[in-house]
């Protein structure tokens, strides 16, 4: 350890955790990166291609893996972080196996959990064969084959936005931000793989907030003939041919719509992770009304926790895309270093 080198524990080895660990190590600090899964990478591991430019997710995975290839980083995998305690000038991070790591600071990057689509019972996920999630569709893209449960190419696919987001019934008022553009990206990918297919997106609002998102949305309509219907699906069922039947209110046409689908994709949103929740409860860290970690200030303290020497990075504070997650992780590193230098 160099003279001015400090030891920081990074809890969570997804995009934010890997970027934070890499940035800290680059600055000469020693990092313990703790990831509960067997491999770092988080949800990105399941993604095939990224919006808005269809960049292969592997490129970002490669970047992040290179980022943590640093002798200053020790990676613990298959183990979670149970509790963080601040005392004196140190923090003690207790892992789920009981190991305690003393460090100078900690960054929490415990990320998000995908909404469990079974909670929206009316969509029949886990019951009807051809209802899948957006994450499962990515698996199909990776496998190079989008099919129905019985192996057929779907003639008509519906992508249902806001599943578990902006929905009081499931106690999630927040927007998950990335699902709209993910749906647009996935709709295009389906049309590329299955040019004969019809693809419908059922949305509440199209939130194309990021650079080039609006262009992607336009391209999906002009080039790929993706259909966008403004209305939420109220229920799904199957007919005698095991084809999905959905009911939607088309709010622009002002009338109800009933449609048969071969494949229905639920654009599942982001929720505070269970591991993050446990960590918050054990460590006495505040959470906001959206149940994510509450940061010190929405505008200029967005990486600060209410525990001295503990900082937040990425989607453990709110839904965000990969670009913003990486920026947020870098900001967390900046806050951490400022804290370490100022003690």
């Amino acid at each position: 350890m160099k003279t001015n080198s400090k030891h920081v524990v990074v809890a969570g080895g997804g995009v934010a955790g890997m970027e934070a660990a890499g940035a800290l190590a680059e600055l000469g600090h020693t990092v313990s990166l703790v990831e509960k899964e067997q491999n770092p990478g988080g949800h990105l591991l399941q993604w095939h291609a990224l919006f808005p430019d269809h960049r292969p997710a592997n490129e970002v995975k490669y970047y992040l893996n290179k980022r943590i290839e640093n002798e200053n980083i020790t990676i613990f995998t298959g183990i979670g972080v149970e509790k963080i305690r601040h005392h004196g000038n140190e923090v003690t991070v207790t892992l789920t196996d009981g190991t305690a790591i003393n460090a100078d600071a900690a960054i929490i990057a415990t990320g998000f959990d995908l909404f469990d689509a079974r909670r929206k019972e009316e969509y029949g996920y886990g019951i009807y064969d051809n209802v899948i999630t957006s994450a499962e569709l990515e698996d199909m893209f990776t496998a190079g084959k989008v099919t129905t449960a019985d192996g057929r190419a779907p003639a008509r696919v519906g992508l249902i936005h806001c599943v578990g987001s902006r929905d009081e019934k499931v106690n999630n008022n927040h927007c998950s931000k990335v699902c709209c553009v993910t749906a647009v990206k996935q709709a295009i990918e389906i049309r590329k793989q299955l040019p004969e297919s019809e693809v419908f997106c059922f949305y509440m609002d199209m939130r194309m907030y990021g650079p080039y998102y609006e262009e992607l949305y336009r391209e999906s309509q002009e080039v790929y003939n993706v259909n966008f219907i403004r209305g939420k699906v109220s229920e799904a069922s199957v007919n005698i041919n095991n084809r999905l039947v959905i009911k939607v209110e088309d709010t622009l046409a002002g009338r109800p719509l009933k449609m048969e689908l071969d494949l229905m994709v639920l654009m599942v949103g982001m929720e505070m992770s269970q591991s993050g929740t446990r960590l918050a409860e054990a460590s006495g860290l505040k959470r906001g009304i959206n149940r994510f970690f509450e940061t010190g200030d929405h505008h200029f303290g967005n990486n600060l926790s209410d525990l001295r020497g503990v900082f937040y990075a990425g989607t453990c504070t709110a839904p965000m895309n990969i670009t913003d997650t990486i920026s947020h992780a870098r900001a967390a590193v900046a806050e951490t270093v400022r804290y370490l230098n100022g003690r």
Partner: protein
Amino acid sequence: MQLAGKQRIWAEYQKEVPDDHFFYVRSCIRQTFFPGSEQIFLKIMRDDLGKDVKEDPRHTTCTGIGYHGDVVPFETISTVVARQFSLATEAGYKNIAISCVTSFGIYTEILETWKHFPELLAQTRDSLYKATGRTFELPESIAHASDIIYKFRDEIARKAKVNLADVTTGKPLKVVEHIGCHYAKMFPKHGFGGAEFPHVLIGMVESWGGEIIDYPERRHCCGFGFRQYLVQANRGYSLSASRKKFESMEPYQPDMIVANCPGCAMFMDRWQYVIKESDGIAYGVSGTGIPVLTYEEMAGLVLGYDPWILGMQYHNVQSLSLLRKMGIKADPARRFLAKDGSRLPEPANLVNG
């Protein structure tokens, strides 16, 4: 279709139903349209299952239809319901068994309202006392009567004389189940299986040998919908809602429909007659109508009760072919005979004659 997914939901939405000692509140329309159903429920409970069920002739309508028709305000209906609770309190009963799904929704809504707005409970106590001098205790449990039959479905299965199966082939009957909207759509936690995949009737049908049809319009309203029917000008709504369901279930060739709400059973029965008369269309196999049974009638058949005692002859869609399929001997000539042998009024133009 993945049964495990449904089973997970069914396991999630379970509720406590007491073992015994029920105070029974009847339904205005069930005892009018299906005169045998409530009687057979009581008989099954008392004679077949050995349960204690108390009735009080002083209990009244819950006024639910008036409430949903916007002519009875909440303050009034909650006082009426409080009076029913007062009768139960007076008789020493803490478990309410409710015949009607509309009433079940009303009772549930009122109890939930009182829980969240205790001042309204106090106001209701005051109103009831001023009007009648009565007081009441909140019930320890409320259950729809179908919940109770559901709870004892396996015991009924053990006593069954007849299965829900084709006696010739042994194949299960194909059954459409219809759950009244007010059973669980307002408060999913109060219904077995919740709102989207209710299990209350499926559990009975499967325990008694039948097979359930899950068809696209399963969740759709039967067409009762209160104002759809109560306002004469809206009745086309009611009819078209039922028709939508019939057209959706038709390809599955169901042997019967069973409902836990008397309004649903009544409308799905009656509108088949109307559609047959007006358009000559029937939705069962080979141009027949699909018999619509109350769950009490279904339980009664399984336990071997005489279909004519159950009152099945007073349905618009007759069930003789269904009874034959189940191996139940029912003499058509006795359909409209009273106990003393005199002839009862015979409806004209019955479907499945």
